[in-house]
């Protein structure tokens, strides 16, 4: 019984629950104090704004939990967007382009995965390399041009809502994918193995977990999701461009870390990450409605990011100090 209480308490004071509470708080406060924040139209806008970050964050969370990183996602997005435009110009049907683009994203992931697990190169360096490479290829494919004449059936679906109501179409996609990734990460043997790999890859290997192969597939999935987001991005803005999504990788990593995932691997939860993404998007949205300049958003994002790791560390340190002082006092009076 006391076991449960202690577990519960440690769970409630962990950063990923704090972030969930913080997110709910921001949503509630903003709904009451910011004009036009709580409207259904604004809800749609917010969902559309967080769509790319939240989808890419799903596999990114898994990758960071295994102690690796994928900085090439935004460039993969750009490359698929470029390819989508190019293929469309070649006269392919949109129905074949979309799966093809997801495959292209997956291929980008295969390259990352091979370099990292096959050759054993550090993922940070590899994905900085492919970040430049994929973005470069995107420009090679489409130059600085844009392809815009995608069919309205598709572009309209991405920006539209279910039956013209308040629920955006893409929300179904977000919920479905988040559920799948959440279950895989938190309630399957595969998910368990991710944490073991992140905390101690050698011990995981000795326990029969196929470390390299697991990581390889994570990169493939990450690439495929980035490809899917590339398609959605292109359709949302009705514009295939090589520079689509530039810089998004930092926003995704920031959101994942803000959600309480340790950059060293082995720690973190998907609900925390989802809350992190929502918190960032909601804050930006609310501040923008309040006419706070975009510049201030930078400061808020950065500060939250640093605090997400700093605060838990500081509380542990303070608690330790307090305990030690108590011990000293006890020793002195003895």
């Amino acid at each position: 019984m006391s076991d449960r209480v202690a577990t519960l308490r440690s769970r409630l004071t962990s950063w990923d629950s704090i972030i969930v509470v913080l997110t709910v708080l921001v949503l509630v406060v903003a709904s009451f104090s910011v004009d036009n924040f709580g409207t259904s139209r604004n809800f749609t806008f917010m969902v559309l704004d967080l769509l790319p970050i939240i989808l890419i964050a799903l596999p990114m969370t898994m990758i960071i939990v295994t102690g690796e990183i994928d900085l090439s996602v935004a460039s993969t997005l750009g490359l698929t967007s470029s390819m989508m435009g190019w293929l469309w110009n070649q006269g392919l049907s949109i129905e074949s382009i979309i799966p093809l683009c997801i495959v292209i994203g997956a291929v980008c992931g295969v390259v990352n995965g091979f370099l990292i697990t096959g050759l054993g190169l550090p993922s940070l360096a590899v994905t900085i390399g492919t970040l430049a490479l994929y973005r470069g290829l995107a420009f090679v494919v489409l130059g600085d041009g844009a392809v815009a004449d995608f069919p309205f059936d598709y572009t309209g679906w991405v920006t539209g809502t279910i039956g013209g109501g308040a629920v955006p179409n893409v929300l179904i996609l977000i919920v479905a994918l988040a559920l799948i990734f959440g279950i895989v990460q938190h309630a399957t043997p595969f998910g368990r193995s991710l944490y073991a790999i992140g905390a101690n890859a050698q011990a995981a290997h000795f326990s029969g977990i196929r470390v390299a192969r697991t990581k390889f597939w994570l990169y493939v999935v990450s690439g495929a999701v980035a490809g899917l987001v590339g398609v959605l991005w292109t359709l949302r803005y009705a514009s295939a461009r090589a520079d689509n999504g530039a810089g998004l990788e930092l926003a995704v990593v920031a959101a994942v870390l803000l959600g309480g995932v340790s950059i060293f691997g082995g720690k973190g939860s998907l609900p925390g990450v989802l809350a992190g993404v929502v918190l960032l998007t909601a804050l930006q949205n609310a501040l923008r409605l309040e006419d706070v300049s975009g510049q201030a958003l930078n400061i808020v994002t950065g500060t939250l990011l640093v605090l997400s790791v700093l605060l838990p560390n500081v509380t542990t340190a303070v608690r330790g100090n307090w305990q030690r002082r108590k011990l000293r006092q006890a020793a002195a009076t003895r």
Partner: protein
Amino acid sequence: MTITSTPTKAPLGNPVAQKASGLFKQRELGIVLALALLVAYTAIDNPRFLSGQSIRDNLLNTAILAVMATGQAIVVITRNIDLSVGSVLGISAFAVATLMSKNQDLPMIVALLVGLGVGAVAGLVNGVLVRYGKVPALVVTLGTLYIYRGITYSWAGGSQVNADELPRHFLTFANDSILGIPWLVLIALVVIAAGSIMMRNYRVGRELYAMGSSPAAAELAGIKVARNLLGAFVLSGALAGLAGVLYAARFGTVDAAAGTGYELNVVAAVVVGGVAVFGGSGTVWGAALGALLLTVIGSALAVLDINQFWQQAIVGALIILAICADRLVAFRIARSLRKRDAHV
């Protein structure tokens, strides 16, 4: 029980081990070679690529990147990373440009010192958060990348400092030469040389390598890890600040977006230059060579009339090639050492 035995290991001064340490040096040689090939090819296509003006332009373009790469290399060698350098460049460039436009008579040295100072403070914040906040460097500097940029934007509030607002001597500094070497290049050379010597021949440099090679062992060895780490971040910040001054002098027009995205170029230069992202190995002058190689590729593409869109892709491929090469070298060393130790 006492057992007598004669050692069966190889004698001292084993040639394989010497060859292994020789392999370390080949890394920088590889970049020099790649650079030479690239320059030769481009020059054959267009001899003007080797003209004085062209060489000068390439060196000037490298200078800013190389100064930042020096600081970054030192931070990366300690098994950390500083992603905030682009934003530090921005804040320093804007601060110095604003200062100089308001005080036309301030000498250049003041501008340089202010830039160094602004950067050092920014670096100190990073260092303190990493060391005393126990926050990983990647997270801290990703955060301060946003924060410093945000501060610059808020401060600038959309304004811009134009070339005509800046004092003459400030702008000409970028192009003036001493003994035929532009000031900018000279400053970069001094920074690289000082960094290289410090890292190679001074105790503190070796301690920085030790910290990156094994952080836990460094603590146990009694190395002043906190002081050194703060020092490395302050240095990286200060050099990014210095780069900000050089940027302002060279480009004349400074807005709040100056240096956006530079961090990736700097990290790329360092990685291409052979500094391992997990610390402990690589050299400052290797990183500087990396910066030179990246810059020359850019200008060679323009001269060779290759679609400029290929540039980024080539840089990306080069980074991957560089780390693959490092891996290969490390693998070879490991194998030669294992063979040497093997009893079979």
